[in-house]
């Protein structure tokens, strides 16, 4: 219990919360109670916004719209139809969520700025509707006379009960947010935010994660809007305004984008900043903007991020192993999905694949095949199509002609996450790790798509998240396999390049793949690190895993590959035993641009 309390920044947060509750109970005037109630409503709005903005990393500008719709649904149902809270409140959550479901699929496909603008556009259309459709919405005046909350005859009418009721809802919302984000499922959001392709290549269904985050944010926004309508008894177009959206963004960034405590801190601070500056009359918004800007600059990771960094600065980082790692023997290597099962021959085959970008032909009828347990090197000059081929195999690009078969499945048009779940893992030229997470958790993310269990499982998991424990055990074994277990508890951001490379390979390995595609794994490593890495990759092959390595470094490949394939301008120009391929005139010409009288491609790095 004591160690739980002292971990992270729990103690100051709990003390702060206790102080705030004490203030609310003993000292607050009726006006203060109202202000604290507003803090709770905004905290709810921000908690929702953290799903899409913080966790999914998409700058949505429709959070205020969801808030406004929630308010209008309550307003219309309560004033025009006299429906009770137990009907209006769920409807206010369902309404915005339904809008998010409808617009989510097309809108979430858009890239960053296009997504932001589309969500802004939706918000402005809804705002205009609210103003124009005055028969229902009351036009610019909005709807007045929304009753206080009443549940089964009990009226929540006086300010103190409203305060407790709102904060009760906030507490439930915090619990739900905690459930969604704490375990293995929550760790998946981190990688998805860092790089969507890397996440998809580990079997994470990025579209589904983004969609659920968007719908959750809408539901929270709707709940907050409904509560606001009951508290101030009015809904007006102001509830849908861009100004509210700006406030919500500011609260989220100032509090902390992904932390539950950040939502509460950000909302409370911003609401109170405005209260404190009201004495400045005309100048109050200037002071508010200036102070908010100053906080943003002084604490760029949010207030919670600043507190966490302060803790690390004062007391150092906790590098204690999770209890699962310290008890019992070292766990076994990751589950090799049915390695013993009879495998089709070949395991992975590419047939006549072609892909052009505009006028540039990247792949021009490439065919190759890999057998089980084979280590194949894929070489070729820059721009010859090696990485493009990897992208086609792993489902990140779709080819325009040809076929890719893996384990007797046609995976030509399959999405990347499905291919990864089938047992094809890969690494990238550029390393995509989550700097804030530990090495262990970075690797553990590899299991989130495969046996993370999805959103509903995450919500329904109480107590220890056994999926996370299991994932960490596998991650530990993978880290050990790559010789990085000693750094397992370090955050990835602080590690040297060579170690980061190995974390990435370990993460791909932790998916338990049948085939692993490595894109220039030796780039930037020193000689000793290269020898070590080659040794470890060779052991993958010995375990029956198929390895396809893209490399320029022929020394590295010579120690590793049983077979080389050379690409040039999107075509396979040579294939076979390494020595034979290196002697092939076409290969020498492609690499060196010389006539074929140079006897053999030197055993040196060409670049």
């Amino acid at each position, binding site marked *: 219990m004591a160690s739980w309390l002292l971990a992270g920044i729990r103690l100051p947060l709990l003390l702060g919360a206790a102080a705030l509750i004490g203030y609310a109970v003993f000292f607050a005037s009726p006006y203060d109670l109202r202000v604290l109630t507003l803090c709770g409503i905004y905290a709810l709005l921000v908690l929702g916004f953290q799903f899409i*903005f913080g966790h999914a990393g998409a*700058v949505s500008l429709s959070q205020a719209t969801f808030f406004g719709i929630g308010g209008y649904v309550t307003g219309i149902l309560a004033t025009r139809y006299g429906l009770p809270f137990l009907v209006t409140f769920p409807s206010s959550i369902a309404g915005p969520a339904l809008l998010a479901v409808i617009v989510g699929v*097309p*809108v979430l*496909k*858009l*890239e960053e*700025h*296009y997504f932001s*603008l*589309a969500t*802004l*556009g*939706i918000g*402005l*259309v809804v705002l*205009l*509707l609210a*103003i*124009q459709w005055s028969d229902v919405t009351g036009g610019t005046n909005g709807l007045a006379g929304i009753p206080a909350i009443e549940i089964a005859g009990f009226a929540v009418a006086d300010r103190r009960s409203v305060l407790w009721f709102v904060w009760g809802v906030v507490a439930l919302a915090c619990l739900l947010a905690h459930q969604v984000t704490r375990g293995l499922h929550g760790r998946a959001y981190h990688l998805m935010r860092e790089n969507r*392709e890397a996440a998809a290549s580990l079997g994470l269904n990025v579209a589904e994660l983004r969609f659920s985050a968007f719908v959750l944010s809408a539901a929270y926004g709707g709940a907050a809007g409904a509560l606001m309508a009951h508290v101030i008894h009015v809904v007006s177009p102001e509830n849908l305004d*861009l100004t509210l959206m*700006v406030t919500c*963004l*500011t609260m989220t*960034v100032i509090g902390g984008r992904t932390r539950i405590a950040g939502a509460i801190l950000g909302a409370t601070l911003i609401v109170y900043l405005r209260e404190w500056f009201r004495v400045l009359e*005309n*100048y109050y*918004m*200037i002071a*508010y*903007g*200036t102070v*908010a*800007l100053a906080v*943003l*600059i002084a604490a*760029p990771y949010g207030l919670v991020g600043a507190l966490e960094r302060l803790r690390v600065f004062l007391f150092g980082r906790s590098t204690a192993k999770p209890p699962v790692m310290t008890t019992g023997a070292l766990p076994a290597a990751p589950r090799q999905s049915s390695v013993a099962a009879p495998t089709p021959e070949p395991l992975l085959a590419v047939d006549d694949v072609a892909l052009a*970008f*505009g006028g540039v032909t990247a792949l021009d009828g490439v065919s190759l095949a890999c057998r089980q347990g084979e280590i194949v090197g894929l070489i070729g000059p820059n721009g010859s199509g090696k*990485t493009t081929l990897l*992208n086609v195999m792993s489902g*990140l*690009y*779709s080819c325009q002609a040809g076929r890719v078969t893996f384990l007797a499945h046609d995976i030509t048009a399959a999405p990347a996450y499905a291919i990864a779940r089938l047992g094809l893992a890969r690494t*990238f030229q550029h390393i995509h790790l989550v700097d804030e997470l530990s090495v262990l958790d970075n690797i553990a993310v590899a299991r989130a798509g495969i046996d993370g269990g999805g959103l509903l499982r995450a919500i329904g998991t109480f107590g220890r998240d056994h999926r996370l424990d299991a994932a960490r055990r596998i991650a530990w074994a993978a880290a050990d396999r790559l010789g990085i277990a000693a750094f397992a508890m370090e955050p990835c951001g602080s590690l040297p390049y060579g170690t980061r490379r190995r974390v990435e390979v370990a993460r791909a390995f932790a998916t338990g793949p049948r085939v692993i595609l490595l894109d220039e794994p030796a780039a930037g490593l020193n000689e000793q690190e290269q020898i070590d890495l080659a040794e470890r990759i060779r052991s993958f092959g010995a375990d029956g895993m198929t390895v396809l390595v893209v490399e320029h470094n022929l020394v590295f490949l010579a120690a590793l590959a049983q077979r080389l394939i050379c690409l040039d301008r999107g075509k396979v120009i040579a294939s076979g035993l390494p020595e034979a391929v290196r002697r092939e005139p076409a290969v020498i010409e492609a690499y060196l641009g010389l006539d074929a009288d140079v006897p053999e491609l030197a055993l040196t790095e060409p670049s």
Partner: protein
Amino acid sequence: MTFLQLVINGVALGAAYALVALGFVFIVNATSAVNFAHGDLVMAGGYVAVGLGALAPLPILVLLPVVAAIMFAVGIAVALVAYFPLANRPPSTVFISTLLCGIVLQNLFLVLFGPQARAAPPLIKSGIVHLGGIEISIQALGTLGVAAALIALQYVVFMRTQIGRRLRATAQDRQMAQAVGIRTSAVIAATFGFGTALAGVAGALLANQFFVYPTGGISLSVYAYIAVVIGGWGSIAGAVIGALMISIFQVVVSAYVSYAVATGLLYVSLLLIFFFRPQGIFGELVQRRV
């Protein structure tokens, strides 16, 4: 009014919007950050013109260089406050810092000039020219002329001068530009200055016919954002074309329906564009680089 007359009015408004979008896209290219204070900086330019016009009873055309110079300095100040301290954070952080800058500016205008709309003196003089059956105000003609001259100047500076090469190099790859000895911080500060000067000139041009008021910048920021998105993110020519499309749409459509409905239709068409062409009107469909 004939359709042609409407289109010409739309183009005249679009010329000013084009300057707004041009300044916006400069900053986007140099920093990959969205400057959401941009519309408020347009208003600032308008207020500077109002203030200068009250001090010296001269046509705005004469005062434009002064407006541009003042706004250049304001732009650098914005960069120092809202961009440089947060340059290493995700772009959405700069989005918010510029939004906050915008809030400060809007309320500064409110305190200094009050909530009512103000008008700046005309560019040369007020009045209307008849060309065939079409009426064009001198202000609109002047706006077109100034915008055309500035867009041409921008093109020459960007494409033909060493400063322009440095700007483009920094926009394309900051680390590489640094490696070849370009002082990228200075270049980025200058980009904010240039972009804001363009915004200021646009504000001075708009402030005669369309007035300036404290919250007038918000919709301009949104229009600039839309123009740059439909024109293809980062494309300078696209931004100008996007701005023209928005203004023509607004002027032509609002002649037949109310202004509010025209604005609604603008956003609905934007959403439809996204639905059918997720890469923007002029964007090419490319697979994400991995």
